[in-house]
């Protein structure tokens, strides 16, 4: 009971209070050099339609990244759940987190840059350099790389719970391997898939550093615009309104998970 109180206080002070400030500020008027005027206004939300293109771009980049991440994570999680070295393999999945994510993003620049390792290799064979980076696809690649562990872990935990005999039964009853995977395994790990989807899609949608570092002229995402509105334009209400948009998307995701849990 004592511990619950600490936990509640933690959530209240470090989560609920800042969140309420963001929600509150989005309904106020901006001041010229940052800060807010204490008068109610919906003006910041009226700005949002201007950003349809940006929102759409963020959504498709995050969506494509999430699907790719799930497609890659499924076989990995399956393999680990059936392996005899589970703990070791799980450790390997988590190891990249020991390095700061910014450094890992920079590493991609070293590998794929115009003057990077691969292009220097191509150059040695007299081939023209390829511009891998500074476009939305580079952003997708690095998002997939960064968030892959977030998809593997929940998928692993739900696959571990799947009784192996169900899969064997399906095989015995004449299903081929593909059918076992699609018709038996996938429906049984739906909950894991959903959590993996939410764990990847929500942070991907709010990406900031990845599009900034490996993106180019047309790969800015909503996170970059929030930072720009807050810092450069100094329009705190608009920045808050855009953050709220992201919060609403996350909430919908979390509600989806919770509803599923209840149905079970």
């Amino acid at each position, binding site marked *: 009971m004592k511990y619950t109180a600490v936990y509640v206080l933690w959530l209240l002070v470090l989560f609920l209070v800042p969140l309420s400030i963001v929600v509150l500020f989005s309904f106020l008027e901006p001041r010229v050099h940052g800060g807010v005027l204490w008068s109610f206004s919906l003006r910041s939300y009226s700005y949002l339609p201007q950003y349809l293109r940006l929102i759409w771009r963020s959504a498709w980049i995050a969506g494509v990244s999430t699907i790719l991440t799930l497609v890659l994570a499924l076989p990995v999680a399956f393999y680990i759940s059936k392996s005899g070295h589970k703990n070791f393999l799980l450790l390997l999945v988590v190891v990249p987190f020991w390095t700061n994510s910014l450094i890992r993003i920079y590493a991609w620049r070293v590998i794929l840059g*115009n003057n990077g390792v691969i292009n220097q290799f191509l150059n040695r064979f007299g081939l023209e350099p390829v*511009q891998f980076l500074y476009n939305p696809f580079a952003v997708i690649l690095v998002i997939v790389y960064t968030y892959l562990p977030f998809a593997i872990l929940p998928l692993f935990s739900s696959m571990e719970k799947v009784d192996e005999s169900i899969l064997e039964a399906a095989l015995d009853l004449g299903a081929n391997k593909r059918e076992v995977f699609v018709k038996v395994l996938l429906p049984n790990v739906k909950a894991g898939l959903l959590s993996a989807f939410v764990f990847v899609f929500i942070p991907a949608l709010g990406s900031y550093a990845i599009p900034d570092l490996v993106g180019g002229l047309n790969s800015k995402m909503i996170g970059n615009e929030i930072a720009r509105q807050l810092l450069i334009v100094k329009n705190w209400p608009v920045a808050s309104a855009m953050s709220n948009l992201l919060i609403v998307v996350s909430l919908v995701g979390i509600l989806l998970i919770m509803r599923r849990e209840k149905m079970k």
Partner: protein
Amino acid sequence: MKKSLILLLTILLTFSAFGRATLYIYSWAGYVPEEIIRDFEKKFNCRVIYDTYASNEEMYAKIKAGKGKGYDVIFPSGDHVSIMIKEGLLQKIDHSKIPNFKYLDKEILNKTTFDPKHEYSVPYMMGATVVVVNKKYVKNYEKSWSIFERKDLKGKMTLLDDMREVLGAALKYLGYSVNTRNLKELEEAKKVVLRWKENILKFDSSSYADGVVTGEYWVVHGYAEDVYQRIPKGEEKNFDFFIPKEGGTLWIDSMVIPKGAANVDLAHKFINFILDPKNAARIADYLGLPSPNVEARKYMKTKPIYSFEDLLKCELIEDLGEFLEVYNRIWQEIIM
């Protein structure tokens, strides 16, 4: 490994320095040389904490949110000095405590339109935003903003991800003021930037310096001292820094004391220490920039990247208040 060692050392030092006065500085990364800070600590038997920011905006957001508390000396650029004065975040400088102020160049003191009487700010460094060329890849070029029109360098160039700097460059290229309030001029500048946008790889303020030094980018728009410090020894001749012939934007970074400073007296001592000609010379040598301190120029050992005279054709970016909204709109039309 190195990081954790530094961390350990910091913790040790923190304990050993218990009881001494502490000066909290908030400045650009690598802007004040380590030795200067260490000498100051020794001379005044105090401890200095040096926190860094990457942009004026980042600094301002933090100071504004903390209502000017937490730091004793900050190094904002001119437009942000005037914003911070207007927002009441700064306190007046006591000039009787800064006798070394007399060494500062009158020409620079006349340019600080953001605080003409230096009631709140003391200039630290000044410079121009420049174009840096990696000469290994680009041999022939004209020292003009028109370099960004060159189709043959498409995809090899970057402009700063900074509205005032980029629009300022385009305005200068057209022969207008970087602080124009004329809509027609701004629309023309927008067309220029849209043309440049066709040729650049991206708007980049965070990694252009590494980029041009490693050859990832060939031509970048940015701050000379950022690039200068990253060039490996012996490769200096491969890089050219130029202020375009049309002129460009000028920046003046000043030292200010925020309202909520805890150690005002030590802050004044620090500012005075920086203005000591011998120290000012070491700082200018370290940054590769001309010194605003007339007396310091005698002690300088290196030739700055550009001369003081070059700076005179550049124009200071001033705070435009409400009119900034027009700049914001135009910039948004460019980047979206």
